[in-house]
């Protein structure tokens, strides 16, 4: 990478990191807002019980269960965000595509949801699928694909992600039931990422699939 490319990589990478961070913080805040209301409701019920009415154990149980579920979802997002944050630690490492896909879907699901779409990691058989690559650049390529699909799709669209290994190559396939995926518009930075990761993005299955293929980097 020359100096100019490095500067572009730095600026675009930082913008990407900021976008994901803002998205995750928004999602965590949503969970906190729900926990705040559920906790408040429990407090209200307790005050009411002290005054006159008895406490309905089923209602309390349901509310406590909802709080636990919200905490569990928040924890999953925070864990995924931690993985994402540490992806800048090393420029070359072994990335398990199965773990990568799950993490990326967790932290980017909301990007689709705010447009009324659903993003799911739809892997039938979960298995360890390591590829030696640059994780942060791979995350950016994933994001390029996802943003492109979201920009083309309409509310109600379900976007499924699958992974595959073909020899040493790794594949991330985005698919949806409708033919919304044209080729990604030209972008210098996308070319740079593809070049750095020995990657390619191809549109297939009558515009119903977008496949990101990466080759392992050499030591």
């Amino acid at each position: 990478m020359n100096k100019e490319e490095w500067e572009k990589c730095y600026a675009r990478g930082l913008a990407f990191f900021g976008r994901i961070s803002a998205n995750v913080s928004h999602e965590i805040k949503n969970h906190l807002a729900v926990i705040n209301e559920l906790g408040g409701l429990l407090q209200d019920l307790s005050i009411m019980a002290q005054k006159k009415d008895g406490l309905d154990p089923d209602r309390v149980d349901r509310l406590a269960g909802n709080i636990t579920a919200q905490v569990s979802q928040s924890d999953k997002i925070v864990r995924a965000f931690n993985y994402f944050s540490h992806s800048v630690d090393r420029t070359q490492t072994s990335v398990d595509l199965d773990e990568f896909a799950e993490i990326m879907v967790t932290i980017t699901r909301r990007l689709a949801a705010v447009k009324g779409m659903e993003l799911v990691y739809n892997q039938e058989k979960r298995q360890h699928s390591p590829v030696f690559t640059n994780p942060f650049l791979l995350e950016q390529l994933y994001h390029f694909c996802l943003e492109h699909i979201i920009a083309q799709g309409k509310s109600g669209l379900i976007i499924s992600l699958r992974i595959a290994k073909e020899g040493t190559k790794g594949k991330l396939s985005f698919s949806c039931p409708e033919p919304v995926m044209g080729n990604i518009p030209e972008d210098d930075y996308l070319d740079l990422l593809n070049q750095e990761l020995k990657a390619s993005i191809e549109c297939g299955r009558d515009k119903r699939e977008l496949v990101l293929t990466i080759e392992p980097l050499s030591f």
Partner: protein
Amino acid sequence: MSEEKVLLVDDEQDFLKALSERMQTKGLQITSANSGEEAIKAVGDEFFDAVILDMKMPGLDGIETLKKIKEINPDVQVILLTGHATVDKGIEAMKLGAMDFLEKPAEINSLMEKIKTAKTNKMLILEKKTEEEIKSILNEKAW
């Protein structure tokens, strides 16, 4: 206990359910809507003392929904809720006629106070309108 009639609008189902249940426990009449489109329909069908509207929603967002609600009923009192409040968004919302702007998670007593203020504002507007109508009738009839 107060009987304020409130429309709650948020695409986050869990938040909508939790806040609705909490406000009902506090004696409010709650109607909930999952989207801006549903909220517009509800405002067209019924009168509310206050509308609590989430800023960020798929489809019509809070600002767009606020504009449409105000077209249907300029007197409706709208309180906007957001995950991340910014000064710019707050100013934009107030310029469009929002009564107030709160950041999630909102403190319930503060929200209840704002709903009460919304009801008072609505009553004052209605009283003023009624007074103007009476004056207009008196002037027209000249008895």
